[in-house]
């Protein structure tokens, strides 16, 4: 019975876990270091890109999604598609208020 289960399941090696962990720590120090480099508005994009890379590593390897069924890929993916819709619609809405001089935009941009 145990053989039947093992052949369907991929057990991630401890070595890979330690490797991913090392990458996460390295990326953490990169995030902190980069915060001290002057880059104006670019800063948040760099920080979020690194954070997304770290999150993807945790999801694929620590959460085993890489070795999971398509059903789990779809469910996990759905969460992120939802986030893309949320930010994807809200960001242009707010960003364009100043361009189009929408009523009340002054309060929004703190002037």
């Amino acid at each position, binding site marked *: 019975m145990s053989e039947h289960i093992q052949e369907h399941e991929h057990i991630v090696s401890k070595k890979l876990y330690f490797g991913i962990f090392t990458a996460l720590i390295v990326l953490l120090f990169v995030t*902190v270091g980069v*915060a001290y480099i002057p880059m104006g508005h670019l800063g948040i994009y760099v920080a979020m890109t690194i954070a997304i890379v770290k999150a993807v590593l945790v999801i694929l390897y620590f959460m085993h999604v890489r070795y999971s069924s398509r059903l*789990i890929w779809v469910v996990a993916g759905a*969460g992120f598609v939802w986030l893309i819709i949320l930010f994807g619609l809200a960001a242009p809405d707010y960003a364009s208020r100043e361009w189009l001089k929408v009523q009340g935009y002054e309060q929004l941009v703190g002037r």
Partner: protein
Amino acid sequence: MSDTHSMVAHQFDDALQQKEASTVGMWVFLVTEIMFFGGLLLAYFIYRTSYPHEFLIASHELNVTIGTINTCVLLTSSLTMALAVHAAQMGNRKGQVILLVVTMILGATFLVVKGFEYAEKFEHHLVPGSSFHFHSEATLQNPGAPEIFFSLYFALTGLHAFHMIIGLGLMTWLLVKAKRGRFSPQYYNPVEVGGLYWHFVDIVWIFLFPLLYLIDRSMLV
């Protein structure tokens, strides 16, 4: 393969389907959690875009060293949690127990450090409410904005800490079961699923840390 109770509940065809179902169930829950934090993060992004200068100054009240240490603690706890699941998959009962205990100690450490950070905020009048007072309020174009930053800080990190506390509760339950030898290579679903929850809470912090602590530290405030 005799056992006091079957590893597979009656509604499932086999153990693999049962494991898949429990994993999907936890993921559906985590998607609702993504929505939960996503909404708060949207509020953060909108206010940060509206008051970039005030958010920068307010963020510099937070201690990067402490935040970095806490992030390391949480990342390590994710490693030990993944190793605990691995131990369960290998049927290593002693390993499961030790790794779950270490995960819990690291989680508790994170919360204690957070507690000290919160205490410091209280002392410096940075808790939103009647006692809130930001030192350079008078010089700012939007004097109310630092309080907005700290409202978001406490809402985000407070909600995160609450999730960590629930996580510690889950770990306690897993620890008790692991000690009793409940988990084996044939049945370790609860450890796997508990791990998914723990990793998710870690991912939330991975985003919160740079957003709250690391707003343009090249600028001297």
